[in-house]
C-alpha cells in the first residue's frame, strides 16, 4: 500500500477549525458551564453565589423524586423504543411484501414524522382528554374509565403512545430501506429449501437487518430520553404525581420553572453521564452482535 504524507502542519488544523469551533461553542462550553453550575448554590437572580461542592449531587441521590424520575425514564424509554420499533418493523414487512402501491403506503406512513412534537402532544392530548376526548368516550363504552389526569398508568400509556407514534415513521423508513436491500434470492433459496415465512424472517431477514436495527436502537433511545420533552410538556407536564416526569423534563422544570440552577446543573451532568455510559455499552457490546 502506498502512503502519502502531508508535511503541512497548519492545513489540517485549519480544515478542522470550523468543526472544532462549533463543537467548542455549542457542546463543550455549555457542558463545562453545566458542570460548574452544578457545584454552586445560587439565588434566581444570580446575585448571591456559593460554592457547595457535591451538595447538589448528594441531595439528588437523597431525593425520592429523583429516584422516581430515573425509574420513570427507564420504563418510558424502553416502552417507547419497543413500541415504535416493533410497530415500524411490522409495517415495513407488510409494505415490503407488496409489489404495487408501496410508494403510496410509504408516503402515508411517513407523514406523522413531519409533525412537530408539541403538535403531536396536543393532538393526543385532545384525543385522550378525559372530558372532551373521543377515546375516553369510546373506552367508557367498553367499561374502561380512562383518566390520565389522576391515573398514573393511563398517563404513562398516553405519553408512550404519543411519543412512539411520531417515531414509527422514521423507523419505518429505515426498515423498508433495509428490507429492500436484502437480495430476494436469499429468501427464495431458503423457501426452496423448505423454510416457512417465520423461519425465513428469523434466520435470514432479521440478521441481515441487524445494522439497521442497531442504528435505530441508538436513535430511538436517544429520542425517547431527550426529544420527547415537548410531548410530555403538552400532554401531562410530568404528572400526575410525577408519574411521567422523565429526567429531561425534570431538568427543565427544576431549572427554568423552579429557578434552582444548581440542582438543574447537577441533573444535566448526571444525564450526560448516563448518555456516555449508554453509548459505551451500545458500541462495546451490542454492536458486536451486529453483522455488517
Amino acid at each position, binding site marked *: 500500500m502506498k502512503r502519502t504524507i502531508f508535511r503541512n502542519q497548519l492545513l489540517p488544523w485549519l480544515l478542522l477549525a470550523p468543526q472544532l469551533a462549533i463543537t467548542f461553542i455549542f457542546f463543550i462550553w455549555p457542558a463545562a458551564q453545566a458542570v460548574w453550575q452544578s457545584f454552586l448554590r445560587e*439565588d434566581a437572580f444570580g446575585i448571591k453565589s456559593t460554592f457547595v461542592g457535591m451538595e447538589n449531587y448528594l441531595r439528588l441521590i437523597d431525593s425520592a423524586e429523583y429516584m422516581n424520575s430515573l425509574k420513570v425514564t427507564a420504563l418510558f424509554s424502553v416502552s417507547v423504543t419497543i413500541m415504535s420499533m416493533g410497530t415500524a418493523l411490522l409495517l415495513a414487512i407488510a409494505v415490503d411484501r407488496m409489489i404495487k402501491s408501496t410508494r403510496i403506503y410509504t408516503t402515508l406512513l411517513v407523514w406523522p414524522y413531519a409533525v412537530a412534537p408539541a403538535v403531536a402532544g396536543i393532538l393526543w392530548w385532545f384525543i385522550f382528554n378525559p372530558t372532551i376526548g373521543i377515546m375516553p368516550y369510546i373506552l367508557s363504552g367498553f367499561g374502561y374509565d380512562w383518566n390520565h389526569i389522576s391515573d398514573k398508568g393511563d398517563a404513562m400509556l398516553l405519553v408512550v403512545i404519543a411519543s412512539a407514534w411520531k417515531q414509527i415513521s422514521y423507523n419505518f423508513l429505515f426498515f423498508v430501506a433495509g428490507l429492500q436491500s436484502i437480495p430476494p434470492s436469499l429468501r427464495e433459496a431458503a423457501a426452496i429449501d423448505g423454510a416457512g415465512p417465520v423461519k425465513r424472517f428469523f434466520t435470514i431477514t432479521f440478521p441481515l437487518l441487524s445494522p439497521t436495527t442497531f442504528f435505530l436502537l441508538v436513535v430511538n433511545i436517544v429520542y425517547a430520553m431527550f426529544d420527547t420533552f415537548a410531548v410530555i410538556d403538552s400532554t401531562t407536564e410530568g404528572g400526575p*404525581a410525577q408519574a411521567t416526569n422523565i429526567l429531561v423534563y425534570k431538568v427543565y422544570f427544576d431549572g427554568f420553572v423552579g429557578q434552582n440552577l444548581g440542582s438543574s446543573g447537577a441533573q444535566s451532568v448526571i444525564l450526560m453521564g448516563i448518555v456516555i455510559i449508554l453509548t459505551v455499552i451500545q458500541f462495546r457490546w451490542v454492536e458486536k452482535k451486529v453483522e455488517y
Partner: protein
Amino acid sequence: MKAMFTGTAMALALSVTAAHAQTEVQWWHAMGGELGAKLEEIVQGFNDSQSDYKVVPSYKGTYPETMTAAIAAFRADEQPAIVQVFEVGTGTMMAAEGAIVPVYQLMADQGASFDPAAFLPQVVGYYTDTDGNMLSMPFNSSTPILYYNKNVFEAAGLDPETPPKTWGEMEEFSKKIMESGAADCGFTTGWVSWIQTENFSAWHNQPIGTMENGFGGLDARLSLNGPVQVKHWGNLKKWADEGIFKYGGPVGGDNAPPMFYSQDCAMIMNSSASRAGVIANATDFEVGFGQLPYYDDVEGAPQNTIIGGATLWVLSGRPDEEYAGAAKFFEYMASADVQADWASFSGYLPITQAAADQMSGYFSENPGADTGLNEITLNEPTENSKGLRFGNYVQIRGIIDEEFEQLMAGSKDAQGALDSLVERGNAQIEEFQAQSQ
C-alpha cells in the same frame, strides 16, 4: 433626604431633555388574548396622555415564563424596567434585594404622588413588607368564587337563587342534583393549590405557615397539615369516590371548566377573573355566583379569601429616566378611572377604594360581579388570612398538586398527603433560604 432631593432634581432635569427624545419604558407581561388587548389599550391611554415617556408592553407567555424571562434577562443585564409577576413569585422577588426597586421607594425617589392608604388593604397586604412598605404595584388581583348552574339547580328542585353556603350544603345539594339526574356530578374546581388549600385555609382562618404565613421572614415553614385542612382533603377524596367531586387536573385545572360548561358538573370554584369566560361559554344555561363554601363548625369561618393574580415589579439597573417614566405610569395605573375600567372589563378586583366606589353602578347592573370583592373584604385580614409568602413557591404549588394527586389515586390518605406536602415544601423553603443567605 438628600438622595431623594437629587433624585427628584435629576428626574426634573431629565424630563426637560426628554421632551425631545421620548424615553421608552419596557413592560413585560403575561396577559394574552382579550386581556392582552385591553392591557395595550390602557398603555395606549398613558402614552397618549403625555409625550415624555412611551411604555412598551411585550407579551412573554404564561406567568412562570414571563418571570423566568425577566430573571434570565436580568442575568444577561438586559432586563425590562417593569415586569408582571404572579403572586406565587412574590417571595422570590422580595428576597432578590439588589435586583428590584421597591415601589414605595421608586415613588418617593421620583416624587410621584402615591398614597398607600388608598389601596384596599386586602390586596396590597400580600405585597407589603412587615414595616408596611409596598414592594410592588398591584395590577390584576383576583380571588376564587363559586359559579353554579341555575338551570340544573331548578331541574333538581333547588332554589336557583340560593347557592350553597357551607360544605355541608355543597354535599347535600350535589346529592340532590345527582339523584334527580339534573347533572352527573356536583362540583369541580380550578386550582386545587390556590383554592382548595391556600384560600381554604385563609377562609377558615387556619395558618398556611408559621411566622404570619411567611411574612415574618425566611425562617418560616409551612403548616398546611392542620386538622381542618386534613378534614377537607379527606372529604374531597370521599366526594371524588362518590362522584360528587371531579378533579380537573393540576395547576389551573384545565379540565375543570369544560365539565362545568358541558353541564356535567353543576358547580365550579374558580377565579373571579374567569367570570367573562364563564358567561361566554355557558351558552345553554344561566350562571349564578356565590361565595366559597365553609365548614360551619370551624370557628372564625368564613374569614376572608386571599388574592391571586399578579403585580408589577420594577427591576433595578435601568437608566434613571426610565424610572421617572415608570413612576408616572404607576400614577396613571392606580387612578380610579383606569382601575375601574380594567376591573369591570376583566373581572379582576379593583385595587383601590376609589375604584371600588366608582364600580358600584357596574356592580348593581351585573349582579354577582362583586362576589369576589365581598369575599376579600368580609373581615379585617388576620395573620392567617392576609396572604402567604414563601420562597420557591412555584415548586411548592407543584408539590401541592402532586400530593393531591396521590390522595386522588388512593396511594395516600389526607393526613399522609398533607404531611408529606409540608415536609417536601419545607425542603424547598430551606433550599431557598440557603440560596438567599
